[in-house]
């Protein structure tokens, strides 16, 4: 497979799901770009016809974390499905603990307590958010008179 291949949106939507396995071995590079705009995204048969929610943001994220500047669309789709599944699992778990049927921050923090990276990140984010809120409030009060 050619390493210089830059764009990933080359999978034809009519291909059956298992063809994704062989995509990497293809020598041909058909110039179909439709997959990136397609609402269905036919390469991953498991998720059906859900519209892609995070394609743009995920591409930037993948590049930031070390992937190529133009990640393959199929890989982005796989990641999106993974993220949605992750959020779904976390949400269901959070609903089942603490106050039932609701998702609260304390529940999320409890669920990831064993994962040091995620735990530290949530703590940081929430702390920063509090600081920002305080700063904004102080700013607004300072301007109240004017």
């Amino acid at each position, binding site marked *: 497979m050619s390493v210089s291949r830059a764009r990933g949106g080359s999978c034809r939507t009519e291909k059956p799901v298992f063809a994704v396995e062989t995509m990497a071995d293809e020598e041909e590079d058909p110039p179909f770009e439709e997959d990136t705009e397609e609402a269905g995204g036919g390469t991953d048969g*498991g998720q059906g016809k859900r519209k892609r929610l995070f394609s743009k943001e995920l591409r930037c994220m993948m590049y930031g974390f*070390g992937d190529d500047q133009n990640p393959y669309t199929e890989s982005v789709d*796989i990641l999106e499905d993974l993220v949605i599944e992750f959020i*779904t699992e976390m949400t269901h778990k959070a609903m089942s603990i603490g106050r039932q049927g609701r998702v609260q921050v304390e529940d999320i923090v409890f669920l990831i307590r064993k994962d040091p990276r995620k735990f530290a990140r949530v703590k940081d984010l929430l702390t920063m958010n509090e600081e920002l809120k305080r700063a904004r409030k102080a700013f607004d009060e300072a301007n109240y008179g004017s």
Partner: protein
Amino acid sequence: FTSQSCAAKKIKIEIKEKKEKKHKVDEDEIQKMQILVSSFSEEQLNRYEMYRRSAFPKAAIKRLIQSITGTSVSQNVVIAMSGISKVFVGEVVEEALDVCEKWGESPPLQPKHMREAVRRLKSRGQIPNSKYKKIIFH
């Protein structure tokens, strides 16, 4: 009496010193980061900017969570969920890059790298799975 207050004082001083030490370590970290970033090539700067700035759109995350709970969720929940989702993406991508390198291949990451990465993370318990058997990938 006095032995108790002495012990309490000691603990207070220890906590204060620990805080100061942590503060100094944080400052060192910040300085080191600044030196590192200032030595980045343009390509590295681009990637670093994407790493820092990329984020999930809050509205879409909120909609997703609320479609599952059926109730509304607070802003903090959206912030927390977006944050850990990004960390999750990072873990998968980094693992996939390891796999890619181990197989003697190069980016862009291919689905087979992603799938192997997920397999490895799952075996280390880093991917939540409350279902016994779920076929995501063919």
